[in-house]
């Protein structure tokens, strides 16, 4: 089987869909997983000691919502690219929302850092992704403007 950009795109769409479903399933398992973590696993270094059951549950549910929104928008973006609608304002909106979701996802993890310092690393990573995507969105906006100018040059 020869690899090309269309197959690559199809693989991306498939991965996005699989991850979307996986997060939905994991959302149902959050209480169980957090209970295991609370009993045994993970670094316990933080300002506040004791059970992290509720803070971690809330943190994971909030970020899961952000993640699902991200994946939904990512799917739409990939579908537009497959339809050869690349530099359109709708894609800028998708990128902006994905970027904001990453930035918002960093907040619960930042707050959870009070219980577990290691969580700050995740918050920083989400923040980093959010900023990178924001720059990509800015580049896309400039490209949309150039495309429009090219389309309306007679």
């Amino acid at each position, binding site marked *: 089987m020869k690899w090309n950009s269309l197959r690559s795109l199809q693989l991306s769409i498939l991965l996005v869909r699989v991850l979307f479903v996986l997060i939905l399933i994991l959302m149902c398992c959050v209480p169980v997983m957090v209970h295991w973590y609370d009993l045994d696993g993970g670094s316990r270094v933080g300002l506040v000691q004791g059970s992290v059951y509720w803070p971690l549950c809330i943190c994971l549910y909030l970020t899961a919502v952000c993640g699902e929104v991200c994946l939904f928008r990512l799917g739409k973006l990939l579908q537009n690219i497959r339809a050869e609608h690349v530099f359109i304002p709708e894609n800028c909106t998708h990128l902006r929302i994905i970027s904001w979701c990453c930035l918002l996802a960093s907040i619960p993890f930042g707050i959870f850092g009070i219980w577990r310092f290691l969580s700050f690393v995740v918050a920083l990573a989400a923040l980093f992704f959010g900023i990178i995507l924001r720059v990509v969105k800015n580049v896309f906006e400039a490209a949309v403007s150039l495309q*429009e*100018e090219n389309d*309306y*040059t*007679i």
Partner: protein
Amino acid sequence: MPIVVNLDVMMAKRKISSGELAERIGITPANLSILKTGKAKAIRFSTLERLCEELSCQPGDLLEYRDEA
């Protein structure tokens, strides 16, 4: 935009239809419509040249600057 395209005025003077002009200058009727309605962002010299040739006019007859202030 303060640049106004007076293509429709010139076409009316020369009594030529959009479809006919589009065919003569070799652009699509959709692109001619963009030009006529003032949605165009830019015009190529080659297009302007063909328009002037077909309509027997000067670029200034087709394009006009209007101060919006």
